[in-house]
């Protein structure tokens, strides 16, 4: 019997007979496959960076905002507040069993100075529980304490970027005085770098007791614009959200449905972001698929041209004993080899390109994308080749031999 190896060798000879054309045809598939891989990597990369930035907000956290929301109850308009009483109510174990900690958040952006060095930091005034809720760990010195909060102590824990911006290499910031706005703060602790995976740099912070921040920077207030609440676990986060919402509703004499605060659930944020990132990735995948389709049409076109050009050769082959199946196979193998080779080179190119940051996104190779792209390249070869190969196989030997 006619052997597979012989027909593959024959197909390779056919491909080799017109290198430039083969290469140009391959280019279509190559670009298609490379763009599938790169675009999927960009999709995956951006979805991961969104997830990372949400995760950098903390672990199992709820954020309550009272961004100046008003509610009308009766004739007078009342300004709803998140205040010290809210914190007390929310910290009650009985009413809110799934809440682990509640931290007020006062944030303001100020220029920090240390001698001649300046650095724009975001100063966060809070309580010690804020550090754990936001995933900050102290790498040197100590964290701010409840005693600091009670004493309005002007002490600060510096994020890694802020510390390196304000202190020259080799000097020890611990115990040093820095100026935040117009006030002097003592650096008591340094925070381990979280990595600036988010949209904002989580390491450019200066965390101080909220009492001191109010005194020195934002002015005394009876309310907070934001509360960071940490739940006990990821699975009970939505329970915690329910508890928080009903406590705040009761405090403000309103219903949960018309609660004048926004409660952001980190878990649902992630799932929303993940699903929109998925949509984005799918969209990119389709764009890439279209370019692969164009490549496939190119392969089919060239295969049709090849079959026409080699009509006489097909006639000769049939005259000397090639049966239909063998002619079909020869051209099919040719098309598959062109596509697959294009696919392999395209995959290599795609992997190469994925190492660079593209449009601000660090692409992450989706593990499925390379086998997918290669599989598709194979499929393209078969689909684009089957009709031309069938045309070649069904040529009648007399007609093919007469062809000029």
């Amino acid at each position, binding site marked *: 019997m*006619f052997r597979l190896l012989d027909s593959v060798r024959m197909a390779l000879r056919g491909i080799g007979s017109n290198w430039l054309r083969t290469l140009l045809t391959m280019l279509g598939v190559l670009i298609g496959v490379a763009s599938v891989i790169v675009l999927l990597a960009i999709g995956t990369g951006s979805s991961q960076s969104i997830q990372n930035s949400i995760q950098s907000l903390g672990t199992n956290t709820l954020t309550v905002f009272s961004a100046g929301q008003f509610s009308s109850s009766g004739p007078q308009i009342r300004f709803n507040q998140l205040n010290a009483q809210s914190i007390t109510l929310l910290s009650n174990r009985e009413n809110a069993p799934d809440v682990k900690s509640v931290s007020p958040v006062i944030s303001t952006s100020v220029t920090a100075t240390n001698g001649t060095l300046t650095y724009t930091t975001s100063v966060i005034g809070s309580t010690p529980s804020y550090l754990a809720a936001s995933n900050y760990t102290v790498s040197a010195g100590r964290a701010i304490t409840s005693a600091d909060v009670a004493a309005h102590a002007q002490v600060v824990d510096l994020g890694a970027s802020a510390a390196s911006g304000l202190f020259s290499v080799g000097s020890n910031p611990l115990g040093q005085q820095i100026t935040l706005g117009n006030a002097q703060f003592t650096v008591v602790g340094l925070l381990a770098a979280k990595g600036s995976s988010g949209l904002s740099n989580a390491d450019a912070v200066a965390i101080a007791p909220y009492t001191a921040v109010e005194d020195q920077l934002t002015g005394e207030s009876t309310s907070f614009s934001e509360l960071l609440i940490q739940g006990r676990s990821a699975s009970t986060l939505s329970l915690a959200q329910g508890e928080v919402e009903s406590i705040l509703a009761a405090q403000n004499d309103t219903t949960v449905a018309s609660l004048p605060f926004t409660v952001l659930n980190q878990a649902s944020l992630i799932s929303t972001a993940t699903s929109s990132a998925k949509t984005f990735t799918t969209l990119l995948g389709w764009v890439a698929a279209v370019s692969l389709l164009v490549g496939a049409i190119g392969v089919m076109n060239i295969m049709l041209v090849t079959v026409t050009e080699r009509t006489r050769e097909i006639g*000769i082959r049939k005259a000397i004993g090639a049966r239909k199946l063998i002619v079909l196979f020869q051209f099919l193998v040719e098309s598959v080899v062109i596509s697959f080779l294009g696919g392999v080179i395209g995959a290599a190119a795609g992997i190469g390109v994925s190492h660079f940051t593209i449009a601000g996104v660090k692409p992450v190779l989706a593990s499925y994308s390379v086998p997918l792209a290669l599989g598709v390249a194979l499929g393209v070869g078969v689909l684009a080749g089957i009709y031309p190969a069938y045309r070649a196989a069904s040529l009648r030997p007399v007609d093919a031999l007469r062809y000029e």
Partner: protein
Amino acid sequence: MTVFDARSDAASAPPASPPVIMLADVMKSYAMGSEVVHAVRHVDLRVDRGEFVAIVGASGSGKSTLMSITGCLDFPTSGHYSLEGVNIRDLDDRALSRIRNTRIGFVFQGFNLIPRMSALQNVELPLVYGGIPHRERRQRAVAALTLVGLANRLDHWPNELSGGQQQRVAVARAIGTNPALILADEPTGALDTTSSLELMALFHELHAHGRTIVMITHEHDIAAFASRVVELRDGSIISDRRQEPTSVGA
């Protein structure tokens, strides 16, 4: 050259072995618009083992059409054709390919070698299709090329060979599978006198070794090398005579 010697087959064959070609009332018609062209009409032809037949006739008399039918490249519109006793009508693509591969060797006017395949590869190709193992097909292809005097041109591409050499490669390809029938359509049509005579010498030798050859030609001095001349006119046989073949080198 026992591989290419058909006499041993003939000797071992039973006395009542079927004729190589048996055409009975064969018609081939083409519909050209409203008109019907009868390229071959009511042809009866029997060619026995070991004959060297020349088919002559004016252009358009149906010679090539007849060859396509005898070569199993086409079917007759009506009538009956059997090759070595096998009715062609009953065969599918696979069986027909097998017959073309093993029982028939073609030599065409335009050589019809496959470009970008060396002389050796061209001669090997039918053996590849026949599923002959690598080593054996190489041996047979080299033997066939040696027989046609091209042992020193194995790795030449067709475009590196003269017309006469290309045609000899084609002959080598035709005989490499040890076929029952060699079909040649104007094999000297594109050759000069010297190459034509060389080719006829080769055909003469194959005939002397018992091969069955059917050769189409325009030229009477080429037909003179055959042992039998069949003349066609307008698709019908108008004469069929045996003759003493001219010996080559005369």
